[in-house]
């Protein structure tokens, strides 16, 4: 009963992610087919990878006939932030999160799912995380299918406007705690400023690395200046 309601509340929480993914992966589907990748391959890539930046880079390597070493290294670098998120998330897991559940749920550690789970007030249960993952993964895979099979049908203005959805969701996650807690606000401002600097002053650093560098630097800044003393998560 409890597991069931956790799964359902996970699914409900996952709806904005699923919708956001649907629109973003739609674009991925279009891009993949344009590079000569079949609809089936594009769908399998989305279902098995569940990540945006890594996949976008991955299909470029496939289209260019790159080596497998290059593929592995690029995925490692772009997706390294997930390792950081996994460690952070591991601190807020329910006791029922056994090793078997961790093996399965690890598949679903994405920027957005991480954001939802790590800002949850209660410990994250396997059911809650599975609920989010099912909805998100469906949106991501189905959006890829739609984009790959029928991408050219929608008006281009609409497809472009959908590109902002996931970022809008990030803002909705960050702003309320930042408005309440000054330390979070300062960490957010620090990370944003550093990210802008990286983009314009050090443009040769890839997007994945920028996120890692800024994420670590801003969190160090926060941990040094505003340590969180209490045991309980706020």
């Amino acid at each position, binding site marked *: 009963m409890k597991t069931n309601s956790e799964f359902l509340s996970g699914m409900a929480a996952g709806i904005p992610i699923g919708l956001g993914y649907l629109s973003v992966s739609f674009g991925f589907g279009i891009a993949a087919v344009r590079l000569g990748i079949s609809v089936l391959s594009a769908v399998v890539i989305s279902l098995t990878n569940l990540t945006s930046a890594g996949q976008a880079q991955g299909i470029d390597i496939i289209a260019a006939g790159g080596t497998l070493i290059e593929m592995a290294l690029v995925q490692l670098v772009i997706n390294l932030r997930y390792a950081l998120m996994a*460690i952070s998330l591991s601190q807020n897991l329910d006791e029922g999160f056994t090793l078997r559940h961790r093996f399965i749920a690890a598949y679903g550690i994405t920027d957005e799912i991480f954001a939802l789970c790590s800002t949850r007030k209660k410990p994250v249960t396997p059911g809650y995380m599975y609920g989010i993952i099912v909805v998100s993964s469906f949106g991501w895979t189905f959006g890829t299918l739609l984009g790959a099979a029928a991408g050219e049908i929608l008006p281009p203005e609409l497809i472009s406007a959908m590109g902002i959805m996931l970022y809008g969701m990030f803002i909705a996650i960050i702003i309320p705690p930042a408005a309440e807690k000054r330390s979070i606000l300062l960490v957010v401002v620090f990370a944003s400023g550093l990210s802008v600097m990286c983009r314009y002053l050090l443009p040769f650093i890839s997007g994945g690395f920028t996120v890692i560098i800024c994420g670590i630097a801003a969190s160090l800044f926060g*941990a040094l200046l505003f340590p969180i003393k209490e045991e309980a998560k706020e």
Partner: protein
Amino acid sequence: MSIWIYILVMAGVTYLIRMIPFAFFTKKIKSVFLRSFLYYIPYAVLAAMTIPAIFFSTGNFITSAAGTAAALILAYFKLPLIVVALAASLTAYGVSFIPGV
């Protein structure tokens, strides 16, 4: 080379990056410093992913900025994620019809 080998490598590497730390970090971290560091990670990472990328997310700076403003305002009033995300998108879509944008 078969595309399926590429996909296998892609998916395998991506899964291992997520799985290894997730499965094997089972202890609660005691150090206040490390706990604080991990506490700030989601906010720092999300902020770095959003800024400045959101301003390029629709391919047009003006529609992106309008969508961002809508998202900031609604998020400040704690509206649900889906409302904020859709409003950002609809605002960007609406603004794209203004002549000259």
